[in-house]
């Protein structure tokens, strides 16, 4: 277990460093001034003299390598820099967004796993049946939908027409506000999981050991329960991990649409306001989440699959 963790960390840290360097480089070549004359609403104008002073104050005129060294040095102490926009530490800006983001991501993933894996299973147990066709058509349609479009449709249907759920916002942070954005975000992974699960279960159902299980005189239900489930799970977990990890980043569209106060919406907002430290911070947060989830998935493998421990 520990070995896997150590090996994994040996992988994570260089990746993280590379991301930091890449993001820093990308945003250092950003054209146009970082705080421009016009705001997102195209209104108030900032004094050029103020801009000049702020550039100096923030050390933006220093050479690139110096700035990078400074940035990494600060990062090491957990300091993501100061937001151009609010003059607050970026860590603080992001910290308040993490919890809503996690909530949304977990809810979306729960939806995706619940619906996707179930659909995939049902489809695989009766390949070629009506339920198989319906599940797979659902899945492939889910993969072909534009996310914001789907979200908007959910809003119209469940908020406006049926009046079951609030259409937007964080509310009191309860489940009611969470449902629609979670479904909108989860539909993509749901579709992928349905397809992966189906393929995985079919794979397992054709495996020799399932034939062995049948030759033991086991009912199909027990065959699935004792032998198929866990083996299919191993195959599904990889996809769950990859999807899960990238979900915080995928959430930008849904968060913007539903006015959900997550990391993604902070990032889009910061992009438009040229708030470089905040954007960098958000990307790092998203990457960190990805790496964390994938480390967890690796550990999960150790639990699920005995071959990993020794192999």
């Amino acid at each position, binding site marked *: 277990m520990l070995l896997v963790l150590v090996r994994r960390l040996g992988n994570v840290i260089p990746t993280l460093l590379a991301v930091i360097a890449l993001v820093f480089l990308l945003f250092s070549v950003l*054209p146009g001034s970082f705080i421009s004359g016009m705001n997102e609403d195209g209104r108030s104008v900032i004094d050029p003299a103020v801009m000049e002073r702020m550039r100096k104050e923030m050390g933006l005129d220093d050479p690139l390598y110096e700035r990078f060294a400074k940035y990494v040095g600060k990062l090491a102490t957990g300091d993501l820099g100061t937001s151009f926009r*609010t*003059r*607050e530490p970026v860590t603080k800006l992001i910290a308040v967004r993490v919890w809503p983001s996690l909530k949304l991501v977990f809810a979306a993933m729960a939806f995706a796993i619940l619906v996707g894996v179930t659909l995939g299973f049902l489809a695989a147990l009766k390949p070629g049946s009506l339920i198989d066709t319906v599940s797979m058509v659902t899945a492939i349609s889910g993969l072909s939908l534009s996310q914001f479009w789907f979200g*908007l449709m959910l809003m119209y249907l469940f*908020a406006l027409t049926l009046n079951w759920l609030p259409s937007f916002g*964080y509310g009191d942070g309860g489940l009611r506000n969470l449902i629609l954005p979670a479904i909108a975000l989860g539909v993509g992974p749901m579709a992928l999981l349905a397809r992966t699960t189906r393929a995985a279960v079919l794979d397992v159902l054709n495996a020799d050991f399932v034939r062995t299980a049948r030759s033991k005189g086991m009912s199909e239900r027990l065959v699935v329960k004792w032998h198929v489930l866990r083996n299919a799970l191993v195959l599904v977990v990889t996809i769950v991990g990859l999807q899960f990890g990238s979900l915080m980043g995928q959430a930008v569209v849904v968060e913007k649409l539903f*006015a*959900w*106060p997550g990391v993604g919406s902070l990032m889009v907002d910061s992009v438009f306001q040229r708030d470089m430290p905040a954007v960098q911070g958000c990307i790092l947060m998203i990457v960190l989440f990805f790496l964390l989830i994938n480390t967890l998935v690796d550990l999960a493998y150790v639990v699920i699959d005995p071959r990993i421990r020794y192999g």
Partner: protein
Amino acid sequence: MRKLLSLTAVAMIAFGGVAAAQETPRKGGTIRMTAPYAASFGSLDPHTTPRAQDDIVNKALQRTLYNWDSKEGKLVLELAKSVTPSEDGLTYTYKLRDDAYFHNGRKMTADDIIWSYTRIMDGSKGYPAARYVRIIKGAVDVEKGQAKEISGLKKIDDFTLEMTLTDRVDPGYSFFVGSTAILPKEEVEKGNYANNPVGLGPFKFKEHLPGSRVVAERFDKFYKPGKPYADKLEVLIMAEAAARDVAFRNKEIDTSILGPAQYVAYREDPQLKNGILEVAEMFTRAVTFNHSYKPFADKRVRQAINHAIDTDLIIKRLVKDKAYRAVSWLPISATAFDKSAKPYAFDPDKAKKLLAEAGYPNGFEFELTTSQNESWGLPIVEAIIPMLAKVGIKVKPKLVEVTVLTDIAMKGEHQAYIGSNLTGPDSLTTMRCYYSKTPRTACNYTGYSNPAFDKLFEDAASSIDPAKRNDLLRQANNLIYDEAPIWFFNYNKAVLAYQPWIHGLQANPTEITHQYPEDIWVDAKSPAR
């Protein structure tokens, strides 16, 4: 005394209510406003932010020395009871309110104003509001670090303040801006002000969920008796128009800002059409010609373009009537606006004639820099292209980010660009954009220079008599319209939709989302908890 005051207030409310007897403001309830311009608030420390979005909250939590009275269309004193300008128009003596309390219970005094303005001038912080305070004598010295105190601000007593200016301007135009709010020193110095703002406003801060909302509660010691009416105020962030539409129809928010498409839909809806507030904002949308690009140096070419574009059609069809046709540089709400002004007629033949006279019988080609803004960006350009093509002018659109548009304009790298220009509330500042001594980096993006205009402008700037100044500005404004340094497109019509249970909204031409929440009340039909 206090009792007497409130009695008067009650009497006034009663009088005001004569016209609509049922409209006795209800106490209590929750106001749910929307912040439509971005997916978050920048900061709740008003000094650090120049954004319209943030001022929506500031209007509830904070107060400035002046306010804009939308009914009268002029600046009024807010934190002072009276003001006396000196003979030379440079020194103003304010009698401050003695009943204004910060949310921490302390009474505001002249010291708070001095401290707040001095903080804004902290050169090391580069507060965006510094440009407004710079009109006070000695403020720039503080900014440069050469002085600790602004010499032009003098405390006579706790409730008397003397302000000396560098130039003869109306300080109201500076000190009604939200980012010049008066803050309590002791709260700011605690170091966590942006997360726990304490102000003078009618509502006191309760909660900020970044990216989602700000919640504020009624402040009982607010200085306007009987106000605010509502117990609670929520400002909900909703940057996505389509989602806002759903939320508004679903009665989850009380106000919403409408884009052109929704404006049409709401106007046609039998229920929603009763809840629409419209105002001509102080923004003039225009294509700004760069007069150093040769064809545009000729007035006839510029006029020809104004004749060649069917502006009314664009406004009607494309902007969906969500704009007022521009008939001058100054907006409708400006006092120097000439109400008899006539727009350029749509007349392609005349345009062709003017072009021929100017030496371009076969037209010419120019590059039009534009952003993607739906009201003053690419869609408008796309509509112009075929119209100008008919008189032989070929337009090549060049798309840039909104944020770099001004950079380009300042550097004069454009041949022409389309944008939205702030043209108020101070008409003198607005007209300065065509003064030949104004550099391109300030706002003379056309590079315009005309001695006749300069004369009018200088006279207006130096006249003390408001009526005379107004008259001169009107002449200057009309001259500019005839000179056509730009294509006059429209003044924005800001449209705010509101639910039937919301009352007391103002049609604020400086920014329609900036409401005075102490005047707003919700009746019992509101579904808000």
